[in-house]
């Protein structure tokens, strides 16, 4: 049985292992930023998701991640190294492709106060807000 069927994911894409040297991209809304930096708020699980929603760089560019936002110009994009994310206690990065986005992945694990501080030390800003 294909992985995507076994995991109940609604897509034709195979689920793959994400290597530690990969990057993941995540949007950051302008209201989540202060002085050009994401707030600790940024590292949370959005409503309707089981983990923190990100894109795997094997199948996405930062620009594509930004364009998935409702209002792309209102969003910056950050990148994190998967191996660094996996160093945060009880966190894992899983490929969870959906029909509209082969790159879609989720960072699983409770976004505790501790985890949010640790995440905020890992990112690199790859697309800034316009005019910022």
């Amino acid at each position, binding site marked *: 049985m294909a992985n995507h069927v076994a995991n109940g994911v609604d897509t034709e894409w195979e689920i793959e292992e994400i290597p530690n040297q990969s990057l993941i991209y995540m949007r950051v*809304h302008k*209201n989540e930023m*202060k002085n050009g930096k994401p707030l600790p708020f940024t590292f949370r699980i959005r409503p309707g998701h089981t983990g923190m929603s990100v894109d795997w760089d094997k199948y996405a560019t930062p620009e594509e991640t930004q364009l998935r936002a409702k209002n792309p110009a209102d969003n910056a994009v950050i990148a994190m190294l998967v191996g660094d994310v996996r160093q945060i206690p009880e966190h894992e990065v899983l490929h969870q492709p959906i029909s509209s986005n082969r790159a879609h992945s989720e960072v699983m694990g409770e976004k505790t*106060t501790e985890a*949010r501080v640790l995440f905020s030390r*890992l990112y690199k800003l790859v697309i800034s807000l316009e005019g910022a």
Partner: protein
Amino acid sequence: MYPGKGKVDNVIMFSPGLRFDEKDQTPSSLPENQGKLQTAIENSQEFLEWEDNWDDEGSLGYRKETWQRATDFILDNNLRLWQAYHVAMDVPDILPGPNGSIDIHWQTPTYELLINIPAAPDQLATFYGDKPSGTVIKGRFQTEARNEWLIMWLTE
């Protein structure tokens, strides 16, 4: 290596209600940082105006009661710290947190501390802090209890 990215050493866990030992309670004037703190609190009211879905991702807006709980915690403990030790804490950022909660955040070259005040009034606040020396503190506490030990950690 700065603590937090991988190995964590010297973890100190605190329980709700644990208090820092008090010294004398000699009355004194208002803390010297009171003006800056009041300004930070007033400026933080901006996000109370945000409605649900303020991030285009479905996040909840913020209730005045949660903000009041957060700012009361800051003001009360700042005053207690000043009265007990004549020490003024650094002024924190008061920020939107996940699920209608509020974050209180200090980030300096010598320490970082994040306190989260949940939207539900009966839930305990959570905190995590560390210093380049390797000291880590984390735990939960009641915001209404005496918690100046936590703020005192910033000044040690």
